[in-house]
């Protein structure tokens, strides 16, 4: 503390004390509480989060089936990953989800945000579109997959419009596209809600000036709305990066059965890591750990890049 403590020649009782003063009885009492209050949560976090993450880094440098001795392998696990066609597909799918689903989700979210800004009933619409985000990924996957069954609602609708031979939506050629569209449906409500909250904070008079100047909708968005919500867009981009890389349940349930896996063509790195460790004949912990580290590195790189991309001088309004 910057302030130097001066001991009073006589103890003073019940005298008001500046909270920041080092010698204040309140400050001393509270500071004594700091570690007892923080340590339980911190220990749990370190033991079950931080140390396991570090352990995974170590496991990724070894060949190991989860029991028995580890065999040091250096970067062999990573080299083998790079050469594995299934991992290549999984990584490509992860990036596709990140950028294609992310792009579609954000475009739709921006569109809905602008529409809902002035719309009657907007709170009801916002509440409805947000709901899929809190439902279990397994349930959403079952519902979504059922819509696209051979005799499902989508095909019945297409036949009603004259399409005699609808595509096999759940076949390996189309399944990943079906999954991506489903993910857009689930995620859009979440990001729309955040963007709406950001837009609501923009002063109305800026838009009134736009109207007086005859600005069209695109000009209002480009020159007023987007600049003033830029920081929140950056936060959304970070949130999307983190959650996109973690997606597991929605894809996993398309396998149709516990203990089995969906076709490898629709795997992302999260599914690949799970499969290597828990769903293949011989567990490959080293390979699964290396995949986990790749996922972690991807999150780290994206967050750093996004913070750099979205950094700019604060705007006062």
């Amino acid at each position, binding site marked *: 503390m910057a302030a130097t403590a001066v001991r009073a020649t006589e103890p003073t009782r019940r005298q008001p*004390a500046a*909270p920041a003063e080092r010698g204040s009885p*309140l400050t001393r*009492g*509270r*500071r004594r*509480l*700091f570690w007892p209050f*923080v340590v*339980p*949560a*911190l220990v*749990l*976090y370190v033991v*079950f*989060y*931080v*140390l*396991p*993450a570090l*352990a*995974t880094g170590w496991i990724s440098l070894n060949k190991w089936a*989860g029991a028995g001795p580890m065999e040091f392998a250096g970067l062999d696990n990573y080299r083998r990953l790079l050469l594995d066609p299934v991992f290549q597909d999984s990584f490509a799918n992860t990036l596709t989800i990140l950028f294609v689903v992310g792009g579609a989700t954000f475009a739709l979210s921006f*569109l809905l945000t*602008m*529409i809902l800004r*002035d*719309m009657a009933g907007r709170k009801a*619409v916002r*509440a409805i579109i*947000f709901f899929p985000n*809190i439902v*279990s*990924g*397994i*349930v959403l996957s*079952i*519902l979504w997959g*059922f*819509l696209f069954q051979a005799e*499902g609602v989508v095909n019945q609708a297409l036949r009603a419009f004259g399409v005699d031979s609808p595509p096999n939506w759940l076949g390996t050629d189309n399944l990943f596209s079906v999954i991506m569209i489903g993910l857009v449906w689930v995620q*859009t409500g979440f990001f729309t809600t*955040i963007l709406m*909250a950001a837009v609501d904070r923009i002063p109305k008079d800026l*838009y009134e000036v736009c*109207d007086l100047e005859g600005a*069209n909708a695109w000009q209002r968005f480009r020159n007023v709305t987007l600049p003033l919500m830029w920081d*929140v867009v950056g936060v959304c981009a970070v949130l999307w990066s*983190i959650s996109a890389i973690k997606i*597991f*349940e929605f894809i996993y349930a398309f396998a149709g059965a*516990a*203990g089995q896996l969906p076709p490898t063509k629709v795997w992302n790195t999260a599914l690949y890591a*799970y499969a290597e460790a828990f769903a293949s004949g011989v567990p490959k*912990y080293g390979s*699964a*750990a290396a995949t*986990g580290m790749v*996922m972690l590195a991807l*999150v780290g790189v994206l967050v750093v890049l996004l913070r750099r991309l979205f950094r700019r001088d604060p705007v006062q309004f």
Partner: protein
Amino acid sequence: MATTRRFPGPSKLLGAPLAWLFALFSVAVAGWMLLTSLKSTRAIFAEPWSLPTSPQWDNYARAWTASDFAGATLNTVVLVVGTAVATIALSAPAAYALSRILTRWNSGITAFFALGLGIPAQVIILPLYVMMNELYLVDSLTGLWILYVATSMPFTVFFLTGFFGSLPRELEEAAALDGASANRTFWQIMLPLARSGIITAMILNIIQHWGETLFGLIFLQSEEKATLSLALLGFLQRMQYNGADWGGLFAGVCTVVLPVLACYIWLGRRIIEGMTLGSVK
């Protein structure tokens, strides 16, 4: 709306129906999910949008007995409530300390917790499995409870730190003037004041774990210990061998979704704000 404009522009005229269409799609999926859970398998495909002519309540009976959704529901409720209570008990004091007790460690530790938000489960699950196996906590609801509480720490500490930080400082100072110890200030004044944030954190925690699957899939192996998500996956598996029972499957789906929907209708604003407002501040 600007008073200078008499009619909404074309983009607005076209936009509102699109927004409602998007919303109605979700409502339609939910409604159709309910209808389907009350139909026989034949009717589900023959008449996807019709009302059930005679509600098949035994779809629910079959789901609840054949895949033991009753047991799974009980497991899930106990696990989820236990997780929420323990998470708050550990996170609230930590969040209070990190936001209200000034030391040189505050911002470092808060950032340390925030780092956890970015770590995928796949990065920690292997060592956790080995650790829990050695402690005989694999295939144990207690073991899963510990993991749920631990993995809840980053978000909940981070969320409540922001919340405690927004409370007025004057009340703490008034308590100090009255001679309250720091410990008593927390329990009798700050904790009640934070009730709103704590309830929100509990709700978000409950919703997250109600449908959790990955940890359950890996750490629970016995059928009698299954949670709802695992019971649903088990039902899917049974359909591979016993023939499609879509009515029963959708009864299971409704068992998972309807409590969340009820909770959402009742507390929706709090849920939405809890999940999103931190991003805007």
